[in-house]
């Protein structure tokens, strides 16, 4: 192989440059970046345990929607016996009125764009 040393050195430099964003984040301590949704509610609990809500809130919203619109059933009984009116604007967004710092932070990170807000009215936020 002619100029083997140069080629290997070139490859090493190339790989270092290409993967530099990863190394940069590791060094800067940003490798474990997670979105940081801000909870402003005075209440201690969500309508279900936190971990479950993080993973399943979209499914819960779908079942609320079907229950209200198709079955005219509006009362959600939480696991702890508390009852909630099943409504996106009137329940979720009452406790989470900071949509841009809460819902959107995660959704931007995960690149999801729920189309609910084409119709449901976003809570007014103080900018």
């Amino acid at each position: 192989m002619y100029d083997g040393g140069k080629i290997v050195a070139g490859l090493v430099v190339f790989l270092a440059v290409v993967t530099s964003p990863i190394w940069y984040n590791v060094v800067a301590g940003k490798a474990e970046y997670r979105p940081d949704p801000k909870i402003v509610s005075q209440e201690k609990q969500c309508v279900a345990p936190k971990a479950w809500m993080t993973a399943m809130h979209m499914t819960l919203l779908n079942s609320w929607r079907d229950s209200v619109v198709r079955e005219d059933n509006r009362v959600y009984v939480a696991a702890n016996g508390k009852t909630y009116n099943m409504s996106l604007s009137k329940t979720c967004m009452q406790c989470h009125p900071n949509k841009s710092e809460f819902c959107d932070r995660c959704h931007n990170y995960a690149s999801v764009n729920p189309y609910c807000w084409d119709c449901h009215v976003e809570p007014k936020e103080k900018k």
Partner: protein
Amino acid sequence: MGVNRRDFLKITGLGALAGAGSKVAADLVFKDQAEAREARSNKGAFVGKRWAMVVDTKKCIEKVEKDGCRDCAIACHTVHNVPDFGNPKDEIKWIWQEPYEHAFPNQHHPYTAEGLEGAPFVVFCNHCDNPPCVRVCPTKATFKREDGIVMMDFHRCIGCRFCMAACPYGSRSFNWRNPRPFIQNIQENFPTRMRGVVEKCLFCEERLAEGLSPACVEACKVKALIFGDLEDPDSEVREILHTHRSIQRKPGLGTMPQIYYIV
């Protein structure tokens, strides 16, 4: 294959028992269903078996001819975020007025009583007992509820507009454009619609759930709109229909409309 008398009697006996048993079971189930329906709705909700509306047209027409009253339409369109595009081609309407000969084409003839021709009649979704819009909807976005309300699930509407073609009353409107910029005062507690969905009057089912009567009924100062449960023999609607002559819009089509007009 022969069935002897003894076996035949055994089988019919068993059949009769099963029949009687299922009647008892059905009674239990259906009774529970009615109770369950009450239990699961909000406290204080209006629960009915067959919602209907009676329009006292004399009162309404008098008021409209006096001062061009549109109170019911304004109230309804405000609380439901109905846009005003300002042009009849894109118009979205849940409740509006039609001249007599358009509202009741089969009643109209050249010798119609004076004052009726051209008189404004308030019209909206008839919440038919046999709704053609429901039959044609390919996604079941529109369906008939147990209490008779012809409901729309906006989440499922794909905008095919079959329902608009099927409805003989023109009760449905289509969002050709994004309605948001054309709503003057957006009400936060009722969602708007988006481009590409159909909409119509829902008998204010979201208000009934909170124990409120429909917005148009509440807004009518001359009490020309009377809302109630047709299956409740003591209800005001039953009382009025019992004591007055009433007509429906295009009853010959077999849609069984549930808006009754006293003329």
